[in-house]
């Protein structure tokens, strides 16, 4: 019984010593407490889970202040930026990230729209330029054919007015 007790005590002491050593190592790994700037660098990439369109680093609510303190504690615990962001996503949903998780979907639509627009414009240029090339080739010039220059736009009223003025001359 006493032998068993001693054995148990030895094991307990060993575990305690290991824990103490691990604890010391952890504390030394933590270094100084995270600064406000380190906290804000991560908070800036997150949005307040309750307010609309407010980044977490500048949100003035008490809840957000506490979430910033949570980031500080997690940093002090040695958590990485990715782990902290993942924690917030797990607890509050993907809306806390300042970018959609599926980046492809978010960029694909505008890029595709731009490419389609550029293609249509290119095709348009090809279509518009063709007949003129023939004209200019015939004329041997490169300028705007006189016949295509739009006259100073005037409507019927002005045309009538000018006609009358001419008659009165």
């Amino acid at each position, binding site marked *: 019984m006493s032998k068993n007790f001693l054995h148990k005590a030895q094991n307990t002491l060993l575990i305690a010593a290991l824990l103490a050593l691990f604890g010391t190592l952890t504390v030394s790994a933590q270094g100084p407490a995270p600064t406000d*700037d380190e906290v804000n660098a991560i908070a800036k990439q997150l949005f307040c889970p309750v307010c609309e369109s407010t980044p977490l680093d500048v949100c003035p609510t008490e809840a957000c202040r506490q979430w910033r303190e949570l980031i500080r504690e997690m940093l002090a615990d040695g958590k990485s930026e990715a782990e902290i962001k993942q924690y917030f996503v797990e607890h509050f949903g993907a809306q806390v990230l300042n970018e959609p998780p599926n980046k492809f979907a978010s960029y694909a639509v505008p890029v595709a729209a731009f490419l389609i627009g550029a293609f249509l414009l290119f095709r348009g240029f090809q279509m518009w330029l063709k007949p003129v090339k023939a004209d200019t080739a015939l004329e041997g010039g490169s300028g705007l054919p006189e016949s295509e220059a739009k006259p100073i736009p005037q409507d019927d009223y002005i045309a009538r007015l000018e006609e009358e003025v001419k008659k009165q001359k």
Partner: protein
Amino acid sequence: MIAQFGFGVLVVSFLVALYSVFAAIYGEYKKSPSLVESARRAMLLTWPLLTLTAGVLIYLLVNNHYEVQFVYEVTSRSMPTYLKVTAWWGGQAGSLLFWSWLMSAFTSLVTLRKWDRDREFLPWVIVVSGVTMSFFIGMNLFFENPFAQLYQTFEGIGPHTFQPADSILFTPQDGQGLNPLLRHPGMVIHPPMLYLGFVSFVIPYAFALAALITGRTDDRWIRLTRRWALWAWLFLSFGLVLGGRWAYDVLGWGGYWGWDPVEIAAFMPWLTGTAFLHSVMIQEKRGMFKHWNMLLIILTYSLVIFGTFLTRSGVLSSVHAFAESAIGPLFFTFIGLTLITSVALLIYRWDSLRSETTMTSMLSREALFLLNNLLFMSILIVCFWGVIYPLISELFSGQKITVGPPFYERATGPLFAALMLLMGIAPLSAWGHSTVKTLGRAIWKPAVIAVIITVALFFTYTKNAIALTGFFLVALVILVTVYEYWRGANARQKSQGENIFTAFWNLTGRNRRRYGGYIIHISMMLMAIGILGIELFQVETQGRVAVGESLNLANYTVEYREIASWDDSPKGVNFTRAVVDIYENGVYLGELHPRKDFYFESQQSMTIPGQYATLRDDLYILLIDWEPASVEGATFKIYVNPLVNWLWLGSLLFLVGIVIAAWAEKDPERVTVRAGRRIQQTSAADD
């Protein structure tokens, strides 16, 4: 009683607006000028009626009629009178009424003009404006009544338009007061400016639809509404700039633009409006892209309504909030119906809108303007997608997401850079035809100087590639524009014998739209300097310091001297103001007073930064937290925002440019008429 009177006048306004719509349609159908004239007069009557309605609401706001729900929600006894008046647009119901009132003012102005030459447009302009106005008045009447009063019933206290049975009027002692963030002068002016911009764009749209309906699809509708579009653009731009300045001064995050959906809602019509202003010039000069111009103004109108819908329907907070809101689905239906009708009309008139000429060169000014339109539309798609993607995601996958600044900055950055490049090239290209050779000859001198400036910046200011590209483009655009200006003035100097200043003045006066546009280009580049500075070089730090301790950032040192806190009971505010001394490289610059105002009624606080502004940068200090009765000290957040004041400087020049561009030029038609009269008089004298 007064509230009910206001509601009654609102009902009459609604009926009169509806009458004008039906009278105009029926008058046109029956070819009855007297009915159309009656519609016009009815439209004119809406403005005094809505002014009276607004007057009643202002009376209630100023005289603390807290039995009226809207008054209770947006004012309080401690608010000064001017804020009580401006609280009119501080809440949903009031702002919708404000929209209708502005709309009626603009429509009245339009209907007051002489219509002799454009008689066929009149009924349809009345119809389009009248339908839009009726929709907004209807919103007020049926869903967001600003005159609803609080009644106590057995079920509790609630707003009602008419007194329910067995109820008594409930009058709270005081109101909730306006959101403190909306009490800033910038926010007092910002919404009216945006609304003015929104509403002014309805007029060109009304003329465009009138042109489509009547089949008079020549340039007339563009010429009639050119100035409207420019003024609309001025108001919208001014509204956006004021919003940016308000955010910078009040929101306490060291920035001016957060790519918030509400900001984007106002930015989208600005984008299509800007594309339209460029594109109409192609139609005027070359008779091309008539379909495109129609589409742009239809889009601008739809985006104006969409912007109002985004901010008023609750759709931004959640699609479920939208579904539950009374006005959300109605707005959505209205946008859908107007868009479908407009596009259907455009398709119906497709053949009569064919271009009169064809494109002759890919480097001609019209081709470059078309590229400019492609870029504006691409930015629009980025913005539109960024706003609706979270809604689509929530609707289809149930996952709420946020599309924040990184997406917009990455997606729009290259597009804005391309736009800047176009701004540098397009003024040098000619209508009809330009070649690489002609453009190269015109651009090489400004380009070489821009390269020299960029190299100098590389050695003295930054090695950041994005910044250097941006600064090169800024330098190129400014130099090209100034060069163009100088060439014009120089030519005048030689031909007219004017001194250089007179030549500049006369040059601008002779072609206000062109040279106003050049000033706008230069102002945009000044704004670009500010944007590049703050986006690429902003630095920040936050720290807690005791009295006498300091924080360092860039070349600045901020030393905490003292803090004081006091209540201003009449205003219902607690002020906490810190005093900090600021030094640059050890040289004392002065003291700043970052403060935090806490409003008792709304339990909201406002962070007012202490700012030290120079053209080089802006030292921006926020008081974040403090310990009033201990030596623990206070927490400050400090930003150094390089070059940001160029943004505000550019904004001022921008307004000057638009005013010049929009200022009434001598109407060529009137000149023709006057010339005609002169000829007549001379002929008579000769006879």
